[in-house]
């Protein structure tokens, strides 16, 4: 091997190429000019210029989440780095592998309050899985390789590499990825046999089991979803998914009982509440899932499969912790269970399914149809009808009511097709994320289900999609309110709608046209199908402005601080009385 020296910037680009990177989302600036110069001179990496650095991180998240690869971001020092902070925090909360390269002022100016200087490693320390400041050209290649290793290993997450401008110019010797081994970070991926054995014993004895799956299954890769399906089918257990876990188990599968949690399905939440065994796979007992902790699944033994030991016993004390990769653990459990005879308490589980069937009959997503006004649920039902059966449809969302309705009404049959900001709840995530997804899957149908308030948070990214001819579709459920804020104000703050009306909205059709997009509008239910058809058929990017009922609430809902059996249902019945009765039966 030659020991030819390269500049830091050359090594950065070579390291990215050697890591298999094809797309970089970024925005240039003074402190990253040498890297941009190297990008200009080559054609292995494609750079996608966003309109604000926050968009770059979300685009990389969409790219990563829809491919299973590491998403890559390149931004300049100071404001470039600080604009990236929200996206980094988002990726940390949702365990999305990101490597974010930030420029830094030259080493000798660090600490001098130089122009566009920010303490990037200091600012991003709590919102990254790890971060680095490269101080010598000697460390450039090894640090970038290590960053990729850290970002994708164990529980994935964002990693920042801060690179002073003088280091980008200085000469050093490149080291290939094979030569870089991490000293301390070696996450455990195989389950302990004892934990597997204990889980199998619980599976054999369970009368009212639930498999509760989260985004960890998706992070583990498609093999984990296949292993999960084999285990669920072999045991005959019901399977519920978190917001992040949608698609990890097929929505149309008869054993799927849908999403659980604050806006989850009645049957899923009551099954969790009544369960005597919960097998959590790559899920973290988040507060949106558990509701009131002291009332959470009071009679259940809990098995918790998670690759991150700090997730175990964090919110909920579990009986059997299984620290391992979700796919490997599920497969090990299924094999051991089969080897021990593949027994379940079949009769009891059958009885359990009959109970679940009763809850399902409540049809908790039922809503009152309106002939004159488009109900948001109706818009999504029609969208689902139009995309059903296609396996090239990817959906992203913003954050709020539309996000929960999308989670309830759209059906995901496979992993990596649903991108949403779950943990951080970042409004403005969906459009840049959709751009990242479309970059990774140029021929796919990528739809951002948005609200009119969220979409304005990163609306500048319309221009990015135009520049790269990315035919993303914005499906805006426009109710002229920050719907979820309005809903909470209605239900919990005496209908005092403080600052939640989105006044002075743009004309989204003309806005679309201003950016070279196609603008469509639906105002009446009978227009819905035509608008969706036109949106899907268009070659280029489209905004579909769907004017929906303004005061619609998203149900079911577990109010904050309540348990699963205290869910509010929509519709005309008196929900309180109903739930109390169900609760009495269960507890």
């Amino acid at each position, binding site marked *: 091997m030659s020991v030819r020296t390269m500049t830091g910037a050359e090594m950065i680009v070579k390291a990215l190429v050697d890591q298999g990177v094809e797309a970089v989302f970024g925005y240039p600036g003074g402190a990253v000019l040498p890297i941009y110069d190297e990008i200009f001179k080559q054609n292995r990496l494609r750079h996608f210029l966003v309109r604000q650095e926050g968009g770059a991180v979300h685009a990389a998240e969409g790219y990563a989440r829809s491919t299973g690869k590491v998403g890559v971001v390149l931004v300049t020092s100071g404001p470039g780095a600080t604009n990236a902070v929200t996206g980094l925090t988002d990726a940390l909360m949702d365990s999305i592998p990101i490597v974010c390269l930030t420029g830094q002022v030259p080493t000798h100016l660090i600490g001098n309050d130089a122009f566009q200087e920010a303490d990037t490693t*200091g600012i991003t320390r709590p919102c990254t899985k790890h971060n680095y400041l490269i101080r010598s050209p000697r460390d450039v290649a090894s640090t970038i390789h290590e960053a990729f290793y*850290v970002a994708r290993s164990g*529980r994935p997450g964002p990693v920042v590499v801060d690179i002073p401008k003088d280091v980008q110019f200085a000469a050093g010797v490149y080291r290939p990825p094979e030569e870089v081994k991490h000293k301390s*970070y070696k996450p455990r991926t195989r389950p302990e046999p004892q934990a597997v054995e204990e889980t199998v014993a619980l599976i054999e004895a369970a009368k009212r089991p639930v498999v509760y799956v989260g985004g960890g299954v998706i992070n583990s890769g498609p093999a984990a979803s296949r292993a999960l399906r084999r285990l669920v089918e072999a045991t005959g257990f019901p399977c519920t998914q978190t917001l992040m876990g949608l698609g990890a188990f097929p929505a149309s599968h008869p054993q799927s009982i849908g999403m659980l949690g604050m806006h989850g399905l009645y049957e899923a939440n009551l099954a969790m509440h009544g369960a005597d065994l919960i097998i959590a796979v790559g899920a973290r007992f988040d507060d949106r899932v558990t509701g009131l902790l*002291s009332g959470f699944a009071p009679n259940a033994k809990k098995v918790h499969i998670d690759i991150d030991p*700090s997730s*175990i*016993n964090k919110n909920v004390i579990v009986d059997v912790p299984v620290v391992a990769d979700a796919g490997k653990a599920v497969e090990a459990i299924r094999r051991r269970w089969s080897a021990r005879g593949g027994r379940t308490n079949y009769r009891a589980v059958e009885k359990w399914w009959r109970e679940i069937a009763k809850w399902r009959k409540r049809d908790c997503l039922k809503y009152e149809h309106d002939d004159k006004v488009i109900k948001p649920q109706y818009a999504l039902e029609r969208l689902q009808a139009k995309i059903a059966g296609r396996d090239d449809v990817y959906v992203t969302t913003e954050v709020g009511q539309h996000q929960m309705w999308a989670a309830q009404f759209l059906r995901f049959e496979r992993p990596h097709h649903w991108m949403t900001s779950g943990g951080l709840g970042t409004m403005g995530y969906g459009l840049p994320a959709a751009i990242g997804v479309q970059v990774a899957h140029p021929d796919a149908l990528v739809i951002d289900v948005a609200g009119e308030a969220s979409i304005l948070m990163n609306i500048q990214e319309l221009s990015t999609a135009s520049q790269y001819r990315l035919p993303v579709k914005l499906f805006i459920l426009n109710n002229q309110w920050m719907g979820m804020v309005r809903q909470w104000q209605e239900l919990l703050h005496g209908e005092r709608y403080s600052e939640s009306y989105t006044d002075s909205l743009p004309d989204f059709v003309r806005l679309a046209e201003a950016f070279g997009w196609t603008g469509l509008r639906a105002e009446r239910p009978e227009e819905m199908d035509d608008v969706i058809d036109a949106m899907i058929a268009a070659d280029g990017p489209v905004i579909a402005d769907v004017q929906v009922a303004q005061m619609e609430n998203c149900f079911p809902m577990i109010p904050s601080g309540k348990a699963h059996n205290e869910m509010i249902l929509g519709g005309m019945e008196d929900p309180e009385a109903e739930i109390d009765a169900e609760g009495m039966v269960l507890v």
Partner: protein
Amino acid sequence: MTATEQPQEKRIFAVVVDNEPGVLARVIGLFSGRGYNIESLTVAETDPTGHLSRITIVTSGTLMVLEQIKAQLARLVPVHGVSDLTQEGPHVERELVLVKVAGGGARRIEALRIADIFRARVVDSTHRSFVFEVTGSTEKIDAFIDLMRPLGLADLARTGVVAIARGAESM
């Protein structure tokens, strides 16, 4: 029982980390960011060839929180290992204090006499002051400081606890 109702326990964690910039900030940030207590924290390089430092943290919390602290420390990328010295068998713990006592006359003599009982060393002496060095358990040091207070205690500096497991095993 909710987390706040559970009894608090004291623990000593030893954490072996890469000796590189930002590691201490990361550990401290973890404690402040997640609302854990730090009663004392000491850090110094212990392996110059391997560039490793050892951090000793005295903390307290409920069992659930203590388990979290250990897991959260262990998952930091530059952390090589975490030992819960309180849990993992017998250990010895020591703290060092430098105590400045100023004054004269009988109080000065009494200070010297007590220092002798505590096996304190005099590391600085003027006509108007002594600086004593005491090594021992936190309780012993607390007791020494309490006794020096009425005798002209002027200033003190404590290292915080360092601790190590008994026996032949290493971390």
